[in-house]
């Protein structure tokens, strides 16, 4: 329970943790922690995110705001990519290929999704390179903490890559699996991917705060992050066009997910809602970074 409480503490906004984090951690260590305490912390974190500035003295510095925005956009991209993968798996099949061949709106929207997905992924990776290089070049006392963060991220990626390789190897026998087993394995794999993404985002965030990252590298990363955010909206728009174009066809009503519980159309709409949510959060991060950059320019 104490571990869950620490996790809930980590969900508080940066400014709140800077100001009250040590005290709250001390309180959690000093007394027995109940499930009610964990829920109370989770609710408190949500409230602190919704009403940050007036409640928490000690505003976030412009440099820290840039770090938070960079980590925030990365986190949004991971969530967006998970929603995008759901869309990809839902529309992966001969029936969808045939429908795309027959309807230009479907094929056009799908092509646009692929192009923007490649561009956004490239922007995220290219933007991260100078930050990773700056972190690796750190010579100060933060070197050990940065190495730990990088090792965690690398370990998570390796573990997920191993799980993916095992899944691909097992897929050769997938014909003998029951539908329930196949759905379970794919769900566990998907959750593993999300966990891997979460570990990487947390490691990136820790590394960004531990390293003495040059402002130029942060600006470069954020420029590409803003581009990736715009690409997320373009993908969401193309997905909306796809779902509208698909709605008149028979395959949109066919079953999808475990035991065909929901229709293909609803699956895509849910993925689209997740994309819009991640895109909206990335936009908030982008706007905050622009505000912080203006603060630097004014200074």
């Amino acid at each position, binding site marked *: 329970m104490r571990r869950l409480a620490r996790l809930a503490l980590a969900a508080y906004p940066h400014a709140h943790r800077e100001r009250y984090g*040590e005290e709250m951690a001390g309180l959690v260590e000093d007394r027995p922690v109940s499930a009610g305490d964990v829920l*109370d912390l989770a609710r408190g974190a949500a409230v602190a995110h919704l009403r940050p500035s007036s409640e928490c003295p000690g505003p976030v510095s412009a440099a820290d705001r840039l770090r938070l925005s960079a980590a925030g956009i990365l986190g949004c991209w991971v969530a967006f990519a998970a929603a995008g993968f759901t869309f990809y798996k839902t529309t992966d099949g001969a029936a969808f290929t045939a429908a795309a061949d027959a309807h230009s709106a479907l094929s056009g929207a799908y092509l646009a999704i692929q192009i923007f997905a490649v561009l956004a992924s490239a922007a995220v990776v290219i933007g991260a390179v100078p930050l990773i290089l700056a972190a690796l070049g750190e010579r100060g006392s933060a070197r050990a903490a940065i190495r730990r963060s990088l090792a965690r991220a690398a370990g998570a990626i390796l573990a997920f890559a191993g799980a993916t390789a095992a899944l691909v190897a097992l897929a050769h026998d997938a014909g003998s699996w029951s539908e329930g087993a196949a759905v379970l394995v794919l769900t566990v794999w998907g959750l593993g991917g999300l966990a891997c993404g979460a570990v990487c985002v947390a490691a990136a965030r820790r590394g960004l705060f531990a390293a003495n990252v040059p402002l130029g590298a942060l600006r470069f990363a954020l420029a590409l992050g803003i581009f990736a955010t715009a690409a997320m909206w373009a993908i969401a728009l193309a997905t909306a066009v796809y779902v509208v174009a698909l709605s008149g066809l028979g395959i949109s009503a066919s079953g999808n997910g475990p035991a065909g519980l929901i229709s293909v159309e609803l699956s895509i709409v849910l993925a689209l809602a997740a994309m819009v949510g991640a895109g909206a959060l990335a936009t908030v991060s982008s706007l905050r970074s622009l505000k912080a950059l203006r603060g630097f320019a004014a200074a």
Partner: protein
Amino acid sequence: MRYISERSNDPGLLVLSSLAEGPKHGYAITQDVEEMAGVRLGPGTLYGALSRLEAKKLVEALSAEGRRRPYKITAEGARALEEELRSLERVVDAGLGRLQAAGVPA
């Protein structure tokens, strides 16, 4: 023991009432509130209340003692607390009086 949150009660009032006795850190406030009011303040509720009270300058943080940081009520906080308690006192008096007049045992 009831578990209270910001939705169901006013933790700010409980925290100010606790600090009226003298400076206390978070853990001591929760202990005191449990003894005084019979309610358990969750850590998120407590520090949500403290941050709001601090932003309104009703409490003031003192120097940290290790991981613990004591808080003290300010003069403005004492005034606000007294005003709030007087208001509650009027409600309590009126309510009890009406119950008595109606013959309902309080």
